[in-house]
C-alpha cells in the first residue's frame, strides 16, 4: 500500500496562559507534500480552503478556552487534505499544577474539570504497584495497551498469549487492526507536511468479555502522564501521575510512580475487566519526532503484578 500522493495541512498551534487568558506562543504552519514512490516534494504552500477551516476551528478552540481559569493549555487546530479527503481536528493539552491531560474540543470541558479535580488532591503516600492489584480507571487501561500491544504491533513484534477475554483494536478511517494479534495500524499518519507518513495508531479501543469483581484493596490509576515502549527489550514504562490506594473504605492519593514491566509480564498480569468502555482523555504519542493525538477507550482493566 502506498501513501496518497497529495497531502496538505494548515495548523495553528497556540500556548495559552489560562490564569491571565493570554496567548504566550502562537505558530501558524502550512504546507503541502507530493509523493512519487519513495520521493516527497514538500513546500510551505497555503491551501486557502484548509486555512479557512483551520481558522474557524481555532476560533472555536479559543472560545472554549475562555471558560478555563487555571494553568496552561496548548491548543492545536489542524485542517488536512489527504488525496481528496479533507478533515479538521483540534487537540488541547491542558496543565494544572503537575498534572496534564490531552483531549479534543468536544471533550474539553469535562476533561478539564477532571484535571482540576485531580490536581486539587495532594498526594500523601507512596505505593508499590507490585504489592496490590491495579485497577485502570477512566479508560487509562487503553494507555497501558497502547504501549504494550500497539507499539509492539507497529514494530511487527511477535504476538503474545493475551487473555481470550481481552481485545485491543486500532480504529481509523483506513480500517481496524487487531493489535493483540500483532496487526499494524492501517492508517498512514504524519504530523506535518515535512514529515514522513508512518503507520501509527489513531484510536485504541479496548474490549472485554470479562466482568470481574473489584478487589477490596487496590491501586486505582486515574491519570497517566506518559509512556514508552522500548522495541529492543520489549519493556514498557508508564508514568502514573494520579492514582489512589484503596484499602477497604479508605482512599489515599499516592505520589506519582513509574510502572516498568516487559510486555510479556503485562500480558500475564491481566486479571479481568469491569464496567463500560470509557473514553480516556487521550494520548499525545511521540515517535520518530512526530507527535500525534491517539484516542483511547477502555473498560476498567485489572492487572496484578504480584
Amino acid at each position, binding site marked *: 500500500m502506498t501513501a496518497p500522493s497529495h497531502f496538505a495541512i494548515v495548523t495553528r498551534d497556540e500556548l495559552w496562559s489560562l490564569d491571565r487568558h493570554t*496567548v504566550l*506562543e*502562537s*505558530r501558524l*504552519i502550512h504546507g503541502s*507534500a507530493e509523493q512519487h514512490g519513495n520521493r516527497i*516534494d*514538500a*513546500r510551505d504552500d497555503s491551501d486557502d480552503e484548509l486555512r479557512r477551516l483551520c481558522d474557524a476551528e481555532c476560533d472555536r478552540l479559543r472560545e472554549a478556552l475562555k471558560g478555563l481559569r487555571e494553568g496552561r493549555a496548548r491548543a492545536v487546530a489542524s485542517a488536512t487534505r489527504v488525496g481528496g479527503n479533507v478533515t479538521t481536528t483540534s487537540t488541547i493539552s491542558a496543565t494544572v499544577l503537575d498534572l496534564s491531560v490531552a483531549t479534543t474540543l468536544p471533550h474539553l470541558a469535562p476533561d478539564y474539570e477532571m484535571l482540576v479535580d485531580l490536581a486539587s488532591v495532594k498526594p500523601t503516600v507512596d505505593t508499590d504497584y507490585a504489592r496490590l492489584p491495579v485497577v485502570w480507571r477512566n479508560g487509562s487501561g487503553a494507555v497501558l495497551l497502547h504501549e504494550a500491544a500497539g507499539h509492539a504491533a507497529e514494530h511487527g513484534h511477535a504476538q503474545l498469549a493475551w487473555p481470550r477475554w481481552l481485545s485491543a483494536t486500532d480504529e481509523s478511517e483506513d480500517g481496524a487492526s487487531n493489535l493483540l494479534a500483532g496487526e499494524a495500524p492501517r492508517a498512514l499518519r504524519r504530523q506535518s507536511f515535512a514529515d*514522513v507518513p508512518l503507520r501509527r495508531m489513531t484510536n485504541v479501543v479496548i474490549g472485554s468479555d470479562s466482568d470481574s469483581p473489584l478487589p477490596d484493596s487496590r491501586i486505582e490509576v486515574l491519570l497517566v502522564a506518559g509512556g514508552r515502549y522500548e522495541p529492543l527489550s520489549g519493556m514498557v514504562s508508564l508514568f502514573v501521575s494520579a492514582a489512589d490506594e484503596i484499602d477497604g473504605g479508605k482512599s489515599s492519593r499516592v505520589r506519582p510512580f513509574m510502572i516498568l514491566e516487559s510486555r510479556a509480564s503485562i500480558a500475564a498480569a491481566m486479571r479481568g475487566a469491569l464496567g463500560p468502555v470509557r473514553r480516556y482523555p487521550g494520548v499525545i504519542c511521540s515517535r520518530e519526532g512526530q507527535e500525534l493525538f491517539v484516542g483511547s477507550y477502555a473498560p476498567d482493566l485489572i492487572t496484578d503484578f504480584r
Partner: protein
Amino acid sequence: MSEIYRKFGRTVRYDGGMFLRVEEAGQATETEQTFSCQPIARTVDLPDIEPDVVARTVRSIESVVSAPLTIERLVVSEGVAEHEFNDRRWQETTRRIHLSIVFGSLRALVDLAEFDIDAISFVAEALVRAGEQRRAPARIRIASNVSAALLPSLAGLAPPNVRLWQTAGGIDGKGEPVADHEIASTTYPNWYRPSYRTRPVRAPFNLRATCDVNAIDEDLPRAIALLAPPAGLSLRVLCVDAGDVYPATVRVARIDAIATATHWYPYAAGSFGAEMML
C-alpha cells in the same frame, strides 16, 4: 520591543525509507512575553542541493551496516539556509547523519555533522563483535564522538581540573557572532534557535573541554560508541578492550586527561569532542 527573525531554507533528507525535499521560509516575532511565527514568501534564491549526494550516502551506510546488524533508524540530510535578524543576514549549510544500529539487544547511536562513512564502519565492525555486559573498567578512554555527547551534561558539573568553553565560530540565533567564552555556570551569552518555529533559548555553542593533562594512555580500554543517550554523567557505551568488545555503563566522576585534537558533533548547539581519559 519586538525582535524579528526570518529564515529561508531548503533541505534534502532521507528519513524512514523516503527522500524528502523541503522548501520553506518563515518569520518569528518575539517580545519579552510572547512568541509567534508563520510562513512567509520564499523570496531568497538558495543554492541547489544535489539529491544524489544524500542517496549515495544512504547506500554507503546500508552497505557497511549489513546483517547481522540492522538499521533501526537512519536520517541523512543536507540543508542550506539564509537567516535574517534585524539588518544582519547570514547563510549556513549543514550535513547531518543520525543512525541507530541494532545488534541483538544493543543499539549503537551515531550522530555526525558530515557524511563520514568510515566513522560508521568503525562502530559497525565493533558492534557485531559485542559480547555480554561487563563492569566498566576502572580506567578508560572515551572516544571523541562519545565525549562530545557528554559535554552538555558537564555544564555546571565539570570536575575542578576540567574547564568548559564555548568556542568561537558561527552566528547565533539572534545574529551575534559566537565568541570564546568560559562556561563556568549555566548562564550563556548566545541564543540557540534550531528552527524559526522554535523560541530561542540561551545555550552554549561549540562546547569544548580542556584539562591541564593532554596525554592519553593508548593502552586503556576505549568507549567507542554510545549505546543510549547520556543520562547526566552516566554513559552506556560500547567498549573495546584489546580483542574484546562489550557494553558497559561508565559513570563520569573524574576526568584525568583530555587530548587537544577535537572534532565537531551536532549535539545541542554543537560540541567539540576530544579523546578523554577517565
